């Protein structure tokens, strides 16, 4: 093919792509009867309304102790579910990883179980568990627990196979038993990665706990829902701001820990 022909085709392709995108957008605007000018005009108004209503007012600050108490509850819930789930997740990962499975038959069921737990979203778990545990802290705890279990199992299966295959072979060659190999070579090799993932799950779970709280009527999510539905936008926004602050603090701490251990 001549170079001119090649570049002409390239230009045509780009033009065609642009046309399709424009047509799709315009078609969408027509079908949904979206008024573009009005939509754009609404943006500044939305902002001014938000600023007027979402600045924490006097009443919001008087609720601060209650908010902090619920926030603490939510953070502790996230930490507890993440760390307990990680212990079980590590166990499941040891059964699932090619390097450490006691028998090839263990591998598929362990991975499948983790996959099921992981692929059902945390909000779906919360709704399912509502039937068993009702509106209690347990519902939220188990919803976060299951998702974390699935996630930690998956990443640890990969980590174990990645970092410890060689040293496991060496320890088997010395005549070491299964439990000794796990505790002397697999765990030391994987521990920094595990801690790093647990910290990540704690961050994620604090965010998720807010959503789960809305659904299950517990923790900080419940307070947000309550204030929001009572039109106490100032208080609701204080909840959001404090949650963001806590997540940022925890992120900073865990980034520091990660730098030290990795």
């Amino acid at each position: 093919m001549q170079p001119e022909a090649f570049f002409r085709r390239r230009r045509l392709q780009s033009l065609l792509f642009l046309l399709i995108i424009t047509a799709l957008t315009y078609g969408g605007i027509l079908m949904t009867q979206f008024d573009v000018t009005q939509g754009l005009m609404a943006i500044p108004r939305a902002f001014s309304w938000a600023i007027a209503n979402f600045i924490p007012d006097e009443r919001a600050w008087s609720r601060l102790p209650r908010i902090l108490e619920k926030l603490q509850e939510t953070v502790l819930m996230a930490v507890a579910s993440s760390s307990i789930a990680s212990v079980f997740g590590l166990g499941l990962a040891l059964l699932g990883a090619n390097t450490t499975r006691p028998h090839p038959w263990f591998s598929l069921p362990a991975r499948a179980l983790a996959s099921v737990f992981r692929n059902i979203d945390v909000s779906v778990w919360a709704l399912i568990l509502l039937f068993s545990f009702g509106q209690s802290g347990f519902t939220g705890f188990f919803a976060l627990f299951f998702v974390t279990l699935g996630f930690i199992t998956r990443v640890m299966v990969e980590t174990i196979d990645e970092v410890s295959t060689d040293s496991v072979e060496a320890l088997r060659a010395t005549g070491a038993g299964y439990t000794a190999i796990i505790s002397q070579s697999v765990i030391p090799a994987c521990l920094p990665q595990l801690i790093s993932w647990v910290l990540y799950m704690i961050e994620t779970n604090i965010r998720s706990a807010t959503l789960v709280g809305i659904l299950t009527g517990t923790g900080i999510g419940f307070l947000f829902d309550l204030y929001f539905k009572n039109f106490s936008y100032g208080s609701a926004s204080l909840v959001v701001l404090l949650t963001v602050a806590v997540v940022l603090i925890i992120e900073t701490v865990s980034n520091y820990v990660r730098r030290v251990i990795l």
Partner: protein
Amino acid sequence: MTILEVDSVIKRYGTETVALDNVSFSVQPGEFVAIIGPSGAGKSTLLRCINRLIDVTSGDIRFAGVSVPQLRGAALRRHRTQIGMIFQHYNLVNRLSVIENVLHGRLGYKNTLQGILGLYSEQEKRDAVRILETLGLTEQMYKRCDQLSGGQKQRVGIARALVQKPKMLLCDEPIASLDPSSAKVIMDTLQDINRTMGITVLVNLHQVDVALHYAERIIGVNKGRIIYDGAPHALSNAQIYQIYGSEAGELILDLKERYAA
């Protein structure tokens, strides 16, 4: 009295691939044997069948009078404690210190609880320190293994094998990832261990010149079969061709001539 007897061993992977095709040989105590051959010839498989990291398909292996393929559980672990293994990629736990990695060599002698907790006796620790001293690693003893050079890592691997108090060492391409001077240190160390401690050494090598220089006996393998088994000086050019195939053979003979000159 032979220490190792490999008798008509066949190893198949799946139904098609034959890694070892009716391999038989025996090793006397204190021998230094080099196994040479191209990649994929079955050298690594052969070593791993001896300490049962891989199960043979058929045939028998006897080590110190004990038949290896039938061993299970505690008896298999006891068998493995008598054989030290050294790997191309050192296979250390990089995040642990040198001394901890060396003491891993004692785990074969531990019960479950001692193994989980990593409880080693005073005597074992003193042995580990002494072995590290003889290998020139005293200064590195408390360093993490990921801070060491390749040659130092391989000496840690050797220390881990020696602390087992083995009767035999299996070395799988011990110098394939090392620069020439570190490789020489490692090969000299293995030779020294063989001569002064009387430990039998079986070493897989890519480098024919190294094998010819150090080994008392050469076993040449191609496609899972033994092509040559005998003294280094009796290895003919035709046999090197047979082991490595024509093109590679020419290159190796070139090196051999230069090495001889």
